[in-house]
């Protein structure tokens, strides 16, 4: 038990260190972008958060697959926690993306941002995941349904992305151009540190949340054993 505690503390420390380092690098050390100036720095936060959200959903789908394969109930909790984290990071993606859009182009939302549109669709999808969970009693049934849905989610990601690209041909958005990250070496370094930081944050929050949920379950079991 203490080894696991140590692991959690280690993870949290590592994540915190990376976060501070990453943010400091992003704010102060990274070279200024020629086009967008200081506001471009939110890219170092926004994109890693987005990629981490994808990682969350991918992790959830993996755990879902394990559940369906082995029928071990612990994977249900792990998959659910990962989706939970993914939705949180998804909200943050939408918020940071919105802020970036406001700073760059003066609008709080734009459909021309493919990533943002994709996240909106995914956000809706995974919110429905929670609705599904809330309306089914806990047990093997709920675990199965959640797992299947999580797998559908991960299939939806590339399909939706393709759809959004195709949609641009007839939706005629007001096109805001933004240069993709043709990052110089130092920019790339800062990006990687921030990415590691966000993934570390996910790992830390995930382990924490999972431990908490497991304790809840254990407490419930003990309570019942006493009754």
């Amino acid at each position, binding site marked *: 038990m203490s080894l696991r505690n140590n692991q959690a503390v280690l993870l949290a420390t590592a994540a915190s260190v990376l976060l501070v380092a990453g943010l400091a690098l992003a704010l102060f050390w990274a070279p200024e972008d020629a086009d967008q100036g200081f506001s471009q720095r939110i890219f170092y936060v926004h994109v890693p958060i987005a990629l981490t959200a994808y990682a969350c959903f991918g992790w959830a789908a993996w755990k879902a697959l394990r559940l369906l394969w082995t029928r071990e109930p612990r994977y249900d909790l792990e998959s659910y926690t990962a989706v939970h984290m993914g939705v949180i990071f998804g909200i943050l993606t939408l918020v940071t993306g919105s802020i970036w859009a406001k700073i760059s182009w003066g609008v709080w939302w734009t459909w021309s941002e493919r990533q943002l549109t994709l996240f909106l669709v995914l956000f809706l999808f995974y919110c429905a995941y929670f609705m599904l969970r809330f309306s089914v*009693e*806990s047990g*093997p049934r709920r675990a199965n349904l959640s797992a299947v849905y999580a797998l559908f989610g991960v299939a939806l990601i590339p399909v939706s992305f393709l759809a959004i690209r195709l949609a641009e041909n007839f939706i005629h958005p007001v096109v805001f151009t933004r240069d993709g990250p043709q990052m110089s070496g130092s920019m790339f370094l800062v990006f990687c540190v921030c990415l590691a930081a966000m993934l570390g944050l996910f790992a830390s929050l995930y382990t924490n949340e999972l431990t908490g949920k497991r304790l809840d379950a254990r407490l419930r079991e003990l309570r019942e054993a006493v009754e």
Partner: protein
Amino acid sequence: MIQAQGLGRRFGPKRVIRDLDLDVRAGELLLVTGPNGSGKSTLLALMVGLLAPTEGEIEVDLPRGRIGYLAHEALVYKELTALENLDLYGRLYHVAERRETIGALLERFGLWEVRHQRVGAFSRGMQQRLGLCRVLLHGPELLLLDEPYSGLDASARTLVDDVLTEAAGARTLVVASHEPAHVRPLATQALALA
């Protein structure tokens, strides 16, 4: 044929079955008794595989197609006739000589005259009898009967008695009932759920 170790099943926070061990051999008749809500139906559902255990494990040595399950509900379509329902199940269970088998069963359980009637118009007793037809249709080796006598009048009860007497020894049976008087003489094992 049926083995369970530490079997448990909960629904949300409520534990319905707790730490149950079972060993039912082929040809036995297990009588499960207990008041309403004690988990009899849940136990049978676990045996047939409709529910998965939340604790422990249960193993049944037969494939799905060789198990017959009589639930409290008839498991038949109300908008279809008795014949159509049995025909559907006959096809799904790949019953040989489907029409003859169905005809014989309908006759045996006194439903031949009403075979073209919508099940929705059936009385509870008739639905129960149709359920018994469905359960015996594919000649299962394991019969799981959840309250087989419920809703039946005296003559229909005799039918069930006959089914049990005939099956006991030849097939394996698990009967859940809260009026066990008829079944107890035939039972080789008894389980009382609290």
